[in-house]
């Protein structure tokens, strides 16, 4: 039975659609993986060369640190997937009446999670280990063990993952319904990721520029890392075995100990807590009572706005695709634009003497792209309704009113976040005042277009008479990426070839933004039709 469960989970990974589309998807995936591996090995080799010059301990300690951090990150990143996989409600409903034990379920799904960990480690860690081997002239057995690395280390990882899962599941349950807490946590994680991104970007820029790494790593950090490296269990033990170190027995014992301890802890804890975790928690029944006195009947439009707020900000799936990004957009825009400007000014200083508008064009492009990505995160207002979509069809409210409420809230907060980003950039001197105004106009039109056309496209996807997301769906996909690129292209082309004064070019860019409004007259008619054609039901 465990094998059936395992195979069933694996089937879920296979691409869907016609044979041709499946082949294309697999081919695209392979190309993406190949590109990723190429970039990964290139960065590593570039770093390896610099680290060997910079640190007397070579790049081995850094590699160990990376593998150790990746080991924990892969476990933490797999927790939501493991939670969805092991506590999936549909599975529970299907499997609970069948003679299938919890052990079978845990074994089958645990095996699936193990395979996923192995595959991800195989793509991320093994190429680095092989690259390290080639630069350090390792013996042949090193490479064999490097290929086996994901299989061995993932044993410890799966144990740790299963051991942490009950805790994560309870935490996730506790967080369910605590929307403010979710938002704070989401924003916190996004901030941390932004800092990490900034750090990695700086490292990358140093590599590209061929700068030394003194500013990033101190001597005490290097010696501390060297001393700590042997304690990166189980990564360091396996690495020592691969490299043919002298403490073979002790490293082997450490490794086996880690595997057994984690396997025991993981399987024991999860099996022990699996059943009780599936039962509703007692705390859930003790929810704070809402005062009935606060139940005021609102105007229909206010009620619709309130509903949209609840659907958008009390829905965990929007946490990282929209809500947190709203908070982080100003910070992220600043970090990326400031870093790239630095890169341009330090590497293309002479070129910029002739084409001084290049950094401005890049800043405008990035600012618009960020705004477009954030706003498109909430443009699926009809899908967001989930089961409540039937209400849209049966309520006595006009489609226009319902769409307006669906549009206003995400549009308002997206614009607010975008304006804040632009203000941060102009206040810190990253963009000039004229570009700030161009960004405001273009960005406003772009966000408004992505939000409204995206909503219509989403609406079209529920019509029995429209294939896919229809004209407006395609338009959103094109506008969200093509418009920022078009503006950047116009900017570069005119700056390089026209010889026009900057303010004229800015005006032309603003004029181009009005193109986004061209489909607007067709919206009300299309909206009525799509609402009529939208099918909802059980």
């Amino acid at each position, binding site marked *: 039975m465990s094998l059936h469960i395992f195979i069933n989970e694996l089937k879920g990974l296979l691409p869907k659609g016609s044979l041709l589309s499946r082949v294309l998807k697999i081919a695209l995936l392979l190309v993406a993986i190949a590109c990723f591996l190429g970039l990964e090995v290139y960065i590593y080799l570039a770093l390896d060369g610099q680290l060997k010059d910079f640190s007397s301990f070579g790049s081995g300690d850094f590699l160990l640190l990376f593998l150790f951090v990746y080991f924990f990150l892969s476990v933490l990143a797999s927790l939501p997937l493991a939670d969805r996989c092991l506590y999936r409600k549909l599975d529970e409903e299907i499997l609970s009446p069948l003679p299938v034990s919890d052990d079978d379920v845990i074994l089958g799904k645990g095996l699936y999670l193990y395979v996923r960990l192995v595959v991800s480690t195989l793509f991320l860690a093994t190429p680095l280990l092989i690259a390290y081997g080639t630069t350090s002239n390792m013996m042949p057995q090193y490479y064999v063990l490097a290929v086996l690395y994901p299989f061995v280390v993932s044993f410890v990882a799966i144990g740790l993952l299963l051991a942490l899962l009950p805790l994560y599941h309870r935490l996730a349950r506790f967080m369910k319904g605590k929307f403010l807490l979710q938002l704070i946590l989401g924003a916190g994680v996004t901030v941390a990721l932004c800092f990490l991104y900034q750090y990695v970007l700086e490292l990358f820029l140093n590599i590209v520029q061929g700068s030394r790494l003194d500013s990033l790593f101190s001597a005490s950090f290097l010696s501390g890392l060297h001393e700590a490296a042997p304690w990166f269990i189980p990564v360091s033990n396996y690495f020592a075995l691969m490299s043919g170190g002298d403490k073979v027995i002790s490293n082997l014992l450490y490794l086996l100990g880690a595997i057994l301890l984690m396997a025991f802890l993981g399987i024991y804890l999860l099996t022990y807590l699996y059943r009780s975790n599936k039962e509703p928690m007692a705390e859930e029944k003790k929810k704070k009572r809402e005062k009935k006195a606060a139940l005021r*009947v609102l105007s229909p439009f206010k009620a619709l706005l309130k509903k949209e707020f609840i659907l958008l900000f*009390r829905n965990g799936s929007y946490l990282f695709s929209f809500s947190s990004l709203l908070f982080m957009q100003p910070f992220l825009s600043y970090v990326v634009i400031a870093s790239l400007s630095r890169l341009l000014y330090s590497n293309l200083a002479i070129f910029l003497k002739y084409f001084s508008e290049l950094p401005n064009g890049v800043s405008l492009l990035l600012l618009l792209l960020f705004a477009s990505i954030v706003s498109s995160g909430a443009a699926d207002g009809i899908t967001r309704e989930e089961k409540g979509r*039937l209400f849209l069809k049966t309520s006595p409210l006009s489609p226009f009113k319902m769409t307006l409420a669906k549009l206003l809230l995400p549009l308002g907060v997206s614009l607010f976040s975008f304006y804040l980003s632009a203000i941060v950039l102009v206040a810190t001197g990253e963009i000039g005042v004229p570009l700030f105004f161009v960004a405001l106009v273009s960005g406003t039109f772009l966000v408004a277009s992505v939000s409204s056309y995206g909503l219509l496209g989403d609406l079209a996807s529920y019509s029995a008479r429209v294939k896919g997301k229809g004209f407006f769906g395609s338009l959103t996909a094109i506008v969200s990426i093509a418009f920022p690129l078009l503006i950047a292209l116009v900017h570069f082309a005119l700056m390089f070839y026209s010889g026009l004064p900057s303010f004229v070019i800015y005006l032309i860019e603003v004029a181009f933004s009005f193109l986004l409004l061209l489909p607007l007259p067709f919206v009300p008619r299309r909206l009525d039709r799509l609402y*009529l054609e939208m099918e909802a039901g059980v």
Partner: protein
Amino acid sequence: MKIKKSLEIDVDKIANDLSQNAVSIVDVHKSYGDHEVLKGENIEVRRGEIFGLLGKNGVGKSTTIDCLIGAKDFDQGEIKIFGLPIDEYPLEVKSLYGYVPSEPLLYEQMTGYEYLQFVASAYGLSQEAFDKNLAFLDGAFQLGEEALSRPIGGYSHGMKQKEGLIASLIHNPKLWILDEPTVGLDVMAYETLLDMMKRYRDNGNTIVLTSHNIDLIADVTDRVAILNEGKVATLIDFHKEPQKRKDLKLVFFKVYGAKLS
């Protein structure tokens, strides 16, 4: 299809116009791709009656309801509610009925109270009417303050069904459309629903009810249509043929050419 934009019509006056049937379905066709589910369906539901729709799986009961409430577009024919064509006056028509789907379709992120508040606001109910209706309906279905204060996502199927029942009646509609409403309800809630349906009808309102539960249909309905192959195969008026309440199961099996063991 043309929508009348004007909201000048008096919905209350239309709902009280006794010359019109509550529901009129005339020659309605509906297909899903190449598969035609409704093949010229004709149904008239009179005012003040409980009208039952019976049929085995896949004969078009739910599609009929979906077309009636406007959740699904139909290919041909006409549907009127209290004399108003639903495709010309969709908003006016929607304010006249309350609907309970076979599977509760609610906003699961909202609490029970928030959902009811939202529905009442959408229907433009006065505060006084909302408070009064909520107190009455919550008293009848016994969902309770504790449950209503929790997010709907945490409700059991039966609780969601009760929430859906309360929401469907909160605006005091003239027509109550129920699609398999008893699934998941406990015995007490089931009896309450039966009692509520009868009281609702006795107050001059109309109910359209679909169910697989033949005993329920035989117990509460005034007339029943048995559907087969996308049309009404048999129409029974229990006031004219009262003995058929007992024999409804036999009639049902006969329609599909099966024998009751």
